[in-house]
């Protein structure tokens, strides 16, 4: 049996200051520097592909200043656009930030799903499928049933969670009962969900009356989250926030969370201590699924208001990065979700105003994740911590490994 390396999830139930610590102490600064490095590299990429820069590069030796200023312009212009689209611009004030919050809502929910599973020792690649099934149930309740205000939305949420929970719980059940590896199962369940929603969208029950396009009726107004007028930000964000608090509470002060963590770290000891490992696996996966289902709810009852087969986008996969970048802690996931949300919201503006291809945005985004996750590299780049002996390099990594 292999010795288990302790992951750096701040697990010892220390009072909720780990977040604060993360920001104020070393890692926080290093993270900021990491973002800067990634932005510089991304900026270079953007600049290289900029037409004017290429032009001026042609006569670089004649007038290098032109080239350099173009380089600077291309890169900064893009980032300014990104910032304008994600946080603030003079025309709209902080309205873009509301957009960021909107986009990050499902990311946070689904990220929590991945994080919960991870803490219970399960690698949930299946958020995608769980979001889909959650959306399907939530949307169906939302457009097919006509119920009074309040109750309707409540049922939409409940069914969305149930949908995700079923899809996740099924994986947990299969794993617990047959020992099948959850990574295989979740990958396969994703595909099954994708084709299942394709199928549903081809049935009349899920289409608008008289329409043949695979797009559902718009959800009843009683079934959707109220939103802030003039923006897309909806109450789903509050739901996400509550879920973060709930999960955070669960891990810190609930018996369920205790069981998950125990099983995640050492299933043998957990079993010896009377914890039902199989049950824990099933519940953890169901809960992970429910959280991903909440992302589905945020999509159908919040942002999109309709169901289509593309409802999950690439949320399920982004959720993995969000969760791991957030070190599988609830608040970490929350902030990672915001970061990703900002990127997605900003990217749109960047594409429109500067013509930067959208693919570049995912490149920059990936670079940022890599650099945030690799403080030693960033430190090496900035020549920090040369002298100070690394006491325990493990502590500085994002080893949220579930082993």
């Amino acid at each position, binding site marked *: *049996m292999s*010795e*288990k390396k*302790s*992951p750096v*999830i701040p*697990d*010892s*139930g*220390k009072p909720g200051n780990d977040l604060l610590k993360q920001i104020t102490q070393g890692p926080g600064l290093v993270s900021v520097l990491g973002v800067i490095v990634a932005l510089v590299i991304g900026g270079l990429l953007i600049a290289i592909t900029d037409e004017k820069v290429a032009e001026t590069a042609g006569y670089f030796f004649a007038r290098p200043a032109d080239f350099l200023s173009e380089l600077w312009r291309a890169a900064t212009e893009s980032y300014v656009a990104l910032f304008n689209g994600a946080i603030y611009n003079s025309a709209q004030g902080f309205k873009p930030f509301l957009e960021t919050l909107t986009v990050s809502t499902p990311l946070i929910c689904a990220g929590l799903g991945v994080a919960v599973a991870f803490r219970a020792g399960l690698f949930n690649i299946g958020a995608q499928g769980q979001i889909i099934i959650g959306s399907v149930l939530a949307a169906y309740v939302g457009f097919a049933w006509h119920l009074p205000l309040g109750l309707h939305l409540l049922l939409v949420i409940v069914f969305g969670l149930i949908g995700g929970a079923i899809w996740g719980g099924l994986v947990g059940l299969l794993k617990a009962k047959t020992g099948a590896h959850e990574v295989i199962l979740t990958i396969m369940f994703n595909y099954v969900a994708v084709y299942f929603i394709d199928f549903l969208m081809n049935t009349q029950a899920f289409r608008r009356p008289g329409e043949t396009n695979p797009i559902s009726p718009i959800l009843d107004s009683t079934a959707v989250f109220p939103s802030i007028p003039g923006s897309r930000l909806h109450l789903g964000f509050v739901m996400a926030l509550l879920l973060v608090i709930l999960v955070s509470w669960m891990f*810190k*002060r*609930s*018996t*369920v969370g*205790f069981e998950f*963590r*125990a099983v995640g*770290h*050492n299933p*043998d*000891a*957990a*079993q*010896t*201590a*009377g*914890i*039902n490992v199989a049950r824990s696996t099933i519940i953890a996966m169901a809960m992970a699924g429910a959280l991903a289902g909440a992302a589905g709810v945020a999509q159908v009852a919040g942002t999109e208001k309709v169901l289509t087969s593309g409802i999950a986008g690439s949320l399920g996969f982004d959720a993995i990065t969000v969760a791991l970048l957030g070190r599988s802690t609830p608040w970490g996931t929350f902030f990672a979700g915001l970061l990703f949300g900002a990127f997605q919201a900003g990217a749109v503006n960047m594409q429109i105003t500067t013509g930067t291809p959208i693919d570049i945005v995912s490149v920059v985004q990936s670079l940022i994740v890599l650099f945030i996750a690799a403080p030693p590299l960033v430190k090496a780049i900035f020549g920090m911590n040369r002298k100070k*002996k690394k*006491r325990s390099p493990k502590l500085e990594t994002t080893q949220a490994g579930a082993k």
Partner: protein
Amino acid sequence: MKLELRGISKAFGSFYANKNIDLLVDDAQIHCLLGENGAGKSTLMNVLYGLYQPTEGEILLDGNPVEFSGPGDAMAAGIGMVHQHFMLVPVFTVAENIALGAETTKAGGVLDLQVTRKKIREISDRYGFDVDPDAIVEDLPVGVQQRVEIIKALVREAKILILDEPTAVLTPQETDELLEIMRQLKANGTSIVFISHKLREVRAVSDVITVIRRGEVIDSVSPESSTTELANLMVGRAVELNLNKAPATPGEAVLQVKDLTVVDHAGTTTLNSVTFDIHEGEILAVAGVQGNGQTELTEAILGTQAVTGGSVKLAGEELVGKSVKQVLRTGVGFVPEDRSVHGLVTEFSIEENLVLDLYDRAPFGKGISMNLDAIKKNAAAQIKDFDVRTDNALNPASSLSGGNQQKVVMARELSRELKLFIASQPTRGVDVGSIEFLHRRIVAERDKGTPVMIVSTELDEVMELADRIAVLYKGRINGIVPGDTSREVLGLMMAGVSAEEAAEQAEFTKSDNEPVEAAPAGEHSENQEGEGQ
């Protein structure tokens, strides 16, 4: 080969695990390092083996300074090490493990294990090992695994052999055999650095004993020193080595195990119709060579092991078929054999580990919420009560030394009202000072009237604690004898001889039976340390 360490220091951050250590190991000498848990012995050896770079100091071999950038260099220089935690790849065969890093190959890098097998057989023959080169390591008993480790060093022609707590997990027989092997090696000119907490064997085998405390060499003494002297030197205070427990006053038979049978999924019967009782206020020790069903017995009672037949009744209540949680709730305290695998979630804080099986019960848990204050208070009390050495109850359990980890498990299990207390290897890896304490706690539990079941491979511990002794052999109870039964009789019974015959045989052979383990009377409580893997 002669080995000299000069002024070795090793710092982890600002903490010095070794401070200015000088050590001289002569050619063909068995040099013993003695010290409490965390004294810095393993660290020193890891420096010597090239695993750690010394912060200061130098290593000399036959008078020439050497520098090791990794274990490869140390091996090349003729140093071999058998680690405290075995460095074997569990899923490999013996031959593969031994070949690893020093492979013989045919053309094109194709492994030629035939050569390795031959070498294994040669060495096995020379030292009387019984090792199958094609066995998978994880299927082997620890004693054999250890031999594999030794063969590994010998195949590489080590002139200096480091043995870090090699006897911690061995049975008495295996220990004797190992000591014999060490003597043979010495006779063949190998120098040995030997680390052990068991004073009896240290005295039996070593030429020189160096005592280390808090990373510093305290003294070098001769093996003639008494165990009390050694213990006091190690711990730095006077240690009481005798338990002197009062005689038991057994009450009713509260635990009734009847015809308990376990067949594992490979189809082997690991427990065969085991029947015994434990009375209130009595300690029953289960003795036996490892692998004779002890683990299955405790796990079957707890419920982590599926039972094929039979019953376990605690105060009339049937335990078989209950979930682990229900069994624990019935009032069973359980200290598992391997604390780091089954007893603790080492990533959890000490606080959390102290409620690992109590987290959902009052006062710690109510419904699905937990009361963190109660958990904190509990931790403070238990840490004080059991003298767990830590500066913060929020530190992860992995930061504790082995002995302190064991205390955490014991504290947790003894902290509630018990109807039955089961402890496997209760003092494995615990330092001398703490053993007496833990033993006293066990006896105190007995004196409260709780039936206690102790499973130990350490005969000394068995004899120290037991009111009655049940000997397990090949999954059967080979006899239940009084607590004062002699070592010889127990030894024979553990080898499968029935109680009556054993008593007779022991009578006959008493005079020739003076092996190393025959410690003088009154000195039998000093060798309980062990190391869980």
